[in-house]
């Protein structure tokens, strides 16, 4: 997979690295959201899973 787009039959076909990057971004977003929620729960209630 090359970062330079290759015209193929009139359609734009991303390379496989781009999908990997998209997966990385998705995972990173989920992790960041999870980390934020964890941080907030911990700072507000002092615990992550249990009841304060």
């Amino acid at each position, binding site marked *: 997979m090359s970062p330079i787009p290759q015209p193929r039959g009139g359609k734009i076909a991303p390379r496989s690295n781009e999908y990997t990057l998209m997966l990385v971004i998705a995972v990173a977003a*989920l992790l*960041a959201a999870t980390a934020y929620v964890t941080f907030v729960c911990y700072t507000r209630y002092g615990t992550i899973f249990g009841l304060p």
Partner: protein
Amino acid sequence: MSTLTKVMIVLLTVFSLVASTIVVTFVANQDNYLQKADTTKRQLDGAEKAKDQAEREQIDAKKASDVLVAKLEDEKNRLTKDLIAVREELDGFKRTKAALDAEHAGMMAAVQTATTGEQQQRALFVAAQKEVERLKAEQIQREAELKETNQMLLEKLALISDLDGKIRQLTQENQDLGTRVNQYLTKYGQMAAKPPTTVAQGSPGVRPAQPIATVAAQTRSIALNGQVTAVDLRGRLLEISIGSAAGVRKDMTFHVIRGDRFVADILIMEVWPDRAVGVLDVVQAGLQPQAGDNVSTNL
């Protein structure tokens, strides 16, 4: 890599981003329930303490109110006693007022009676005063009539005196004539007769008193003078121009004079304030009274 895998990767990425965004936004906007719970708990504790304080205050207030009620009850009892005393005093005042009202009514009746008596006495006084004035007027009138009668009496006495003088003169002449006749009879040899005398010379009964002239002069000084205004010879009545306002009274005698001549005497029968009517008493022979003749009480 198949197309389906690629689509799934894209969708997964998109959904991941969307879900992450939603979760982060939701969590960021959520309240801090722990803090809110702590705050609420503190508020609850404060409310509990306030409740306890309020209950204690309520108890204290109840105690204070009980004490106040007891005080008010005592005050009520005292005021009730005072009210009873004041009512008794008011009853006494009412009885006193009733007695004073009765006394006032009696005094008013006495005042009314006194006022009525005073009015009656005043009316009697006024009537007596009028009677006194009337009697005074009558006395003045009687005094005037008495004075007039006295004047007439003095005039008559003066006239009697004059007539007595004439009688003495005639008697003297008669005696002189008798003396002459006796002289003639004696001369021709006949008995002389005593000349007749009708009145003794120097008789005190007919001798006029000396002050008559003075009284006559006084009578002349207050004489009434007027004029004849109408004559009725058939009825022998005359009307003169003076009346009671000038001093003319009933039964007075006036002399009718024309110039220096005596015409008649009239006796007053009716008197008005400004005129009087009399009846002819003595009329001079050959003369008849007529309107315009003078009238006077004195010649």
